[in-house]
Structures are given as structure tokens and as C-alpha cells.
């Protein structure tokens, strides 16, 4: 059953197999020829290479720390040296190699290991490696070891430039007025005083400002409709001001609340029996836990009323008795509604007690909350 197809197939396969055979053979030959070309080129360049080789060690010798460069240069040397002339290159190479080790590596090593007998034993020790290194391989491993063993960390301490500077600082500390400040507060626990001052000032300012922006961005937009009022048209250019006022007021309120403990803490902390002041995180945590229970009805007249509600907490963080209205603004009936909402919020979210630091009980046993719905009002 030999059809034209089988012939075509057979010839095709034969061609393919043949191409594979000859193809491999042809590929192998040109590779060899290429290698020969390389050798020819090297013969012409020998003299130049030799001429260039002497300057290489010369350059390397002065720059002792440049170890990596030296490592790079040796590899080209061996192949050149082995085929052509072993005699001349070794001599030229020997001198620079001998010169190299003494300044760079041995000096630090010997001084650290044996301080007293440097002269006689050290110099013989140094030469022995050098002849070994002279030929080919030795220089590379030794240099590698040196690089690894000298991570440049030890030398700096020896130099101790930093130490000198520090020594200069020490006398400054002794001479500074810090001692005087300590004298001013001899009886009081000084450390608590300074720490309190720092804690008070930083957290309150940082946390308040960082949390505010989350809610504020939604408010600047609502004020837009307000400008329609004739009374507020004058303020329209400052449309973002209302929120900023709120923010300022809130920040002021928070700042004032913080300042009372902060001011005495910086001045004199001895009388503080209430433990460290509450951090901004603790205050925010308390506030947020009431926020989520404060149900504001934006359609109610109470949404235009701000009320201040006071209550007492026991050590478990639970409300003692009933919250009471401290102050308010606005219509009485609206105030009553607003107070009821605030009272419900305080009672509802206390389940299990508010999460407050037990060691600061004195600071949160009496609480006054200001419920300000101005940000939730319908616009």
C-alpha cells in the first residue's frame, strides 16, 4: 500500500533525521572555529596586556583598602601567565603582592592578637603567606577571609571618633542646668510630674484632632443650605466655619477638660491621688460607647437642643442612680425630649459597666456629658 503519501512521509522523515544529524555536526564545527579565533586575538594582545599588567599592581599597592579590585585583577592574570611566560609575570606580581599584605591585612590583625612582640615574629609570619599567595590561588582565599573577618565594625571602635565626641557630651550634661531643675522639685516625685505633663498634653491634642476629621467632613457640606438665611448670609463666605467652630469648641472643651489635671501635674504632682490622668484613647472609648446608644431623632425639636447631663459611676463603671440634667439651651419641652434621649443613651449602654480604667476611678466617678446634636441635624 505504497501511496504518494507514504513516499512524501518517508522522504520528509528522512530529511528531518538527516537534518538533525548534520545540523548537530555543523553546529559543533563552528563552535571550535570560534574558539580558535579567540586564541589568535590573544596572541596580538599579549604585549599590551603585559604592559597593562604592571600598572594594575602599581595602582593596587597604594590603595590597600581596595581589596575587591585586587580580587578581580588576579583571575585574568593566571590564564595569561600559564601559556606564555611564567618567569616574567611572577616577578612583577611578587613584588606588588608582598607589598600589599603588610600595609592592609597584617597590621590590624597582629596588633589585636599579640601586642607586645610585633617585630620579629610578625614579619616572618607575614612573608610565608605572601609566597604562597604569589603564585595564583592563595591571594584570592586570603582576601576573601579578610573581607569576611573584617566587617569594618571592629576598626571604627578602635578609632573611636564617636567616643571622643561622647566624652565631650558628658561634661556638658554635668554642667547643664538640669541639676538645677531637680533641685527646684526636691520633695515631689519628679518623674511622675514630668511624665504626666507629657501624657496629658500629647494624647489629648493628637487624639482629638485625629478623630474629629472623621465626622467633620460630612458636616461642611450640609452648611451649604444655611446661607439662604438672611442672618447667615453674612457668614456664607465662611461656610466651613460652623463645623470648624464646632470642632474648635469641641477641641476647647476637651482641652479644658484635660488642662485641669495637666496644669497641676506639671506644677506639682505630689497631691495626685487619682492615678495618672485618663488618656485620650480611654476618653474616646468612653465617649464612643455612649455614642452608639444615643438615638437622635433628626425630625424632633430636640435635635436643636444641647443638654449637659451629669451622673455618677461606681467602680464597675455602672451608673449610680439616675442621670440628671445640668444645663441646657432651648425650649423647655425640647430640652426634656433631648434629656430623655441622653438619659436613655447613658443607661442603655452601661450594660456590664463602661470600660474604664479601674486605677483611675477618682477621675471618672463623676461624669458630665454634653450631648450636642448640631452635627446630626437635618439639612
Amino acid at each position: 500500500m505504497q501511496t504518494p503519501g507514504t513516499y512524501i512521509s518517508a522522504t520528509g522523515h528522512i530529511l528531518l533525521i538527516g537534518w538533525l544529524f548534520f545540523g548537530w555536526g555543523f553546529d559543533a564545527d563552528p563552535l571550535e572555529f570560534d574558539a580558535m579565533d579567540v586564541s589568535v586575538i590573544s596572541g596580538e594582545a599579549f604585549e599590551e596586556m603585559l604592559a597593562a599588567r604592571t600598572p594594575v599592581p602599581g595602582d593596587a599597592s597604594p590603595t590597600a583598602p581596595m581589596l575587591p579590585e585586587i580580587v578581580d585583577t588576579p583571575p585574568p592574570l593566571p590564564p595569561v601567565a600559564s601559556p606564555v611566560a611564567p618567569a616574567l609575570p611572577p616577578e612583577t606580581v611578587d613584588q606588588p603582592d608582598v607589598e600589599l599584605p603588610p600595609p592592609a591585612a597584617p597590621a590590624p590583625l597582629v596588633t589585636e592578637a599579640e601586642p607586645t612582640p610585633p617585630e620579629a615574629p610578625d614579619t616572618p609570619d607575614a612573608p610565608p603567606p605572601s609566597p604562597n599567595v604569589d603564585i595564583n590561588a592563595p591571594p584570592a582565599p586570603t582576601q576573601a577571609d579578610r573581607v569576611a573577618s573584617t566587617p569594618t565594625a571592629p576598626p571604627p571602635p578602635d578609632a573611636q571618633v564617636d567616643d571622643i565626641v561622647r566624652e565631650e557630651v558628658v561634661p556638658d550634661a554635668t554642667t547643664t542646668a538640669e541639676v538645677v531643675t531637680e533641685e527646684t522639685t526636691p520633695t515631689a516625685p519628679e518623674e511622675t510630674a514630668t511624665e504626666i505633663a507629657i501624657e496629658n498634653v500629647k494624647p489629648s491634642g493628637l487624639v482629638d484632632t485625629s478623630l474629629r476629621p472623621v465626622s467633620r467632613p460630612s458636616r461642611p457640606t450640609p452648611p451649604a443650605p444655611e446661607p439662604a438665611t438672611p442672618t447667615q448670609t453674612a457668614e456664607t463666605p465662611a461656610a466651613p466655619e460652623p463645623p470648624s467652630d464646632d470642632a474648635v469648641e469641641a477641641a476647647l472643651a476637651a482641652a479644658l477638660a484635660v488642662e485641669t489635671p495637666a496644669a497641676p501635674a506639671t506644677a506639682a504632682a505630689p497631691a495626685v491621688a487619682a492615678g495618672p490622668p485618663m488618656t485620650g484613647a480611654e476618653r474616646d472609648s468612653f465617649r464612643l460607647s455612649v455614642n452608639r446608644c444615643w438615638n437622635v431623632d433628626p425630625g424632633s425639636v430636640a435635635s436643636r437642643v444641647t443638654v449637659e447631663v451629669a451622673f455618677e459611676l461606681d467602680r464597675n463603671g455602672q451608673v449610680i442612680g439616675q442621670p440628671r440634667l445640668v444645663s441646657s439651651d432651648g425650649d423647655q419641652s425640647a430640652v426634656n425630649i433631648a434629656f430623655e434621649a441622653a438619659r436613655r443613651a447613658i443607661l442603655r449602654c452601661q450594660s456590664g459597666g463602661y470600660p474604664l480604667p479601674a486605677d483611675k476611678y477618682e477621675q471618672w466617678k463623676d461624669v458630665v456629658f454634653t450631648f450636642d446634636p448640631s452635627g446630626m441635624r437635618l439639612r
Partner: protein
Amino acid sequence: MKKFLTLFIALILAGPVAAQNGPLRLTITDGVIEPITFAAPVFEAENAEAVQVVNNLNRLVAQDLAGTGLFREIPANAYISQISSFAQPIAFADWRAINAQALITGAVAVSGNQMTVKFRLYDIYSGQELGGGLQLAGTTAGWRRMGHKVADAVYSRITGEGGYFDSRVVFVAESGPKDNRQMRLAVMDFDGENTQYLTDSSTIVLAPRFSPSGDRILYTTYESGFPRINLLNVSNVGRQQLQTAPGEMAFSPRFSRDGGSVIYSLSTGGNTDIYRSDLATGQFTRLTSAPSIETAPSLSPDGSQIVFESDRSGTQQLYIMSANGGDARRISFGEGRYSTPVWSPRGDLVAFTKQNAGRFHIGVMRTDGSEERLLTASFLDEGPTWSPNGRVIMFSRETQGEAGTSALYSIDISGRNLKAVAVAGAASDPSWGPLQP
């Protein structure tokens, strides 16, 4: 001397230290907006005759409250403890555990066609009863009113605002195609129940308005071929034409807050102005005199001012003037046309119809024109009317096209809870009456 000085300094420093022991002050600015949860276990039936009505009554109360959008009922299958007796003590912890903020308990006794309803309201989180127990007596036929009254009491005690469930609405009941529409005056409960018709459909009637006490209704009729104002007595359906100032057309009437006089529009010689007429004496006063059209007057709750619409600026806008007339100040400045202003019973807002860019809106603004908010938008929304507590606005909405019909809707002034009022047939021009005594 040195000791005195140190003592003095110590005292100064001690001052602020003492202040440190003052209360912890925090400001709460971000609350939540969510319905208040309540539980309303089925009321106790104090006798066998009450068994039938007790469940209906209980459901009506829960439906009224939840229908406001301000309350959410906790389903009965979530209850931990059951209320089997009106007098039993309340296990507050059980109700607190299911997050109920209010608990309503009740008992019903029926004897013949008379019934009494008792109920108590508990504030779960303070563990106290909210207000005292209340007992209502009435007829079994009026059980819905009693249910509304219980819901009103609960609503009022929790929100601090008046309720609006036991109130009625007068409106124009419509039937027939657009080109031959039959119109009748009708009254219904606020939830669309108990509809009663006050007039026949022999003539066109428009814009009915309840009196402040709910006993009379003003409306515009075309009985004589021209619009005139009629006064209708709700109890006996007797009606008479209002004696107005001389003019071709009188329309858009409203009672004064004391119900003793009427403010309305009168058109004469092509000019429309606002007048006031005393119901007892018939004496009238012209309140506006501009050559433009002034109409749709509405009095403030204290009766001292009138808000109305005028096209004196070229388009329909809202103005406020003294109840005795005089200079008017414009309060609407947005785009579009404003009409049918209605002063809120609270006094803080004005509701209006706004037409802008081919759409109609019901909106509210403060009485100085600020804080305008559009609550609805549709092909045709118009004719807002306030609930007695100024919390909800009802209006009529007409659908587009030949087969378009009108229906009544209500919406909370917060812009939430838009609901269709379940009225049989088409309806328009609602006017919300007062809470019934």
C-alpha cells in the same frame, strides 16, 4: 517669711489640683438614628367578651407605633418572659435581654357595647414605669379610636411630642375619568379607615380645610358656576356659603387659629388678594393690595403672621407678612416655583409645593427661608398638610397619563417613611384635623 512664701505657693498649686477631682467632661456629638424598640404583648382579656377585641386592639397599637418609622416592634416569639396578667411585676432583665426599650402592657374588659382599656408603659432601661397607668372607656364600635389613643399616649410619653393617631383627615374623594371626575368631600381616620362622605358629587369641590377644633370644614365649591367658599358643619353636614368681601371668585380659605375668622383669596377685577373675614360679624379686611396674585394664605400657630404665595417677583414665591397685612418679606429663593405654603403646628417650619425642572416636590423650610429640604419628588405632588404634632406631612400624588389617578401619601419630616394612605378610591387635597378629644 520663707515659710509663708512656700505655703502661699503650695496653696496656689493646690487649687488646680483640687479641680482635677472635678467631673470628667466629654462631649457627645455623633449619635445614631434608629427606631426605638418596643414590646407589646397581647393585652389581658379581663372577661370572655373581651377576648375577641383584645388582639385587634393590641395589633392596632403596635401598627400605629411602628407605622411612624420611629418605633420597631420586637416580635412575640423573641420574648423571654410572658405577660399573663396586667398586675404582675415586670422582669426588666428579661426585656432588657431582648433589647426592648419600652414595654406596653394592657387589659381590656367588655360589657355589652361598652369597653374599658387599661395600659401601662415601662421604660426598660431605667426599670421604671413611664407615666402612670391609664384607663380609657368607650364603645366597642369605637375600639379603633381607643387603640389610637393608647398609641398616642405611648408615642407622646416616649418621644415627648404629641401624638397624631386619634385624628381625622378631610379630603376630596374622586371617581371617574379625568374629563368627568366626580368629587365628594370625605373624612377618614388618619390611617384611611372609617371613611365618611360629607357631600354628593353634584358639583366640583376643592381644597377642604379642617377648623382648629375639627368641628367645621371650609371648602371651595363651584355650585354657582364660580368658585365660592362654603362652611360645613361636620356633625350634621349642614353647610352655608361664607360671607366674603365682594368679588368674582373666592377660594383657598383657611381658619384662623381660634376658628373665629377665615383668611382667603378673593379675585376681583383681574387682581387676586388676601382677605380676612370674621365668621360672626362678616366684617372683612383686605390684607394685601399688590397688583400681582396673592393667594394660599396660612397663619402661624400664634396667629401673628401669614405665609402666602405671590408672583409679584415674576414667579410664584413664598412671602411672610403680619397677620394684619403690610409689608411682606420673601422667604423662598431657590430655583423653580413655590406654592401652597402651610405653617407647621410647631411653628418652626413651612411646608410647600415646589415645581422645578418638570418635577413636583413637597418640601419644608424654616420660617426664615433657610434649610430648605425637598422631601418628595414625582410627576405631581402637591397640597401638603401637617399632622397635629407637626411631625408628618400628608399630600396628594397624581400619576401621569390619561388613566392617572390621585392618591394620598404621608412622609415624616425627616424625609423618611414615605407611605401611601390606604384610602378606597382616588383621593386628593387632604387636610389633617386636630387630635380628637
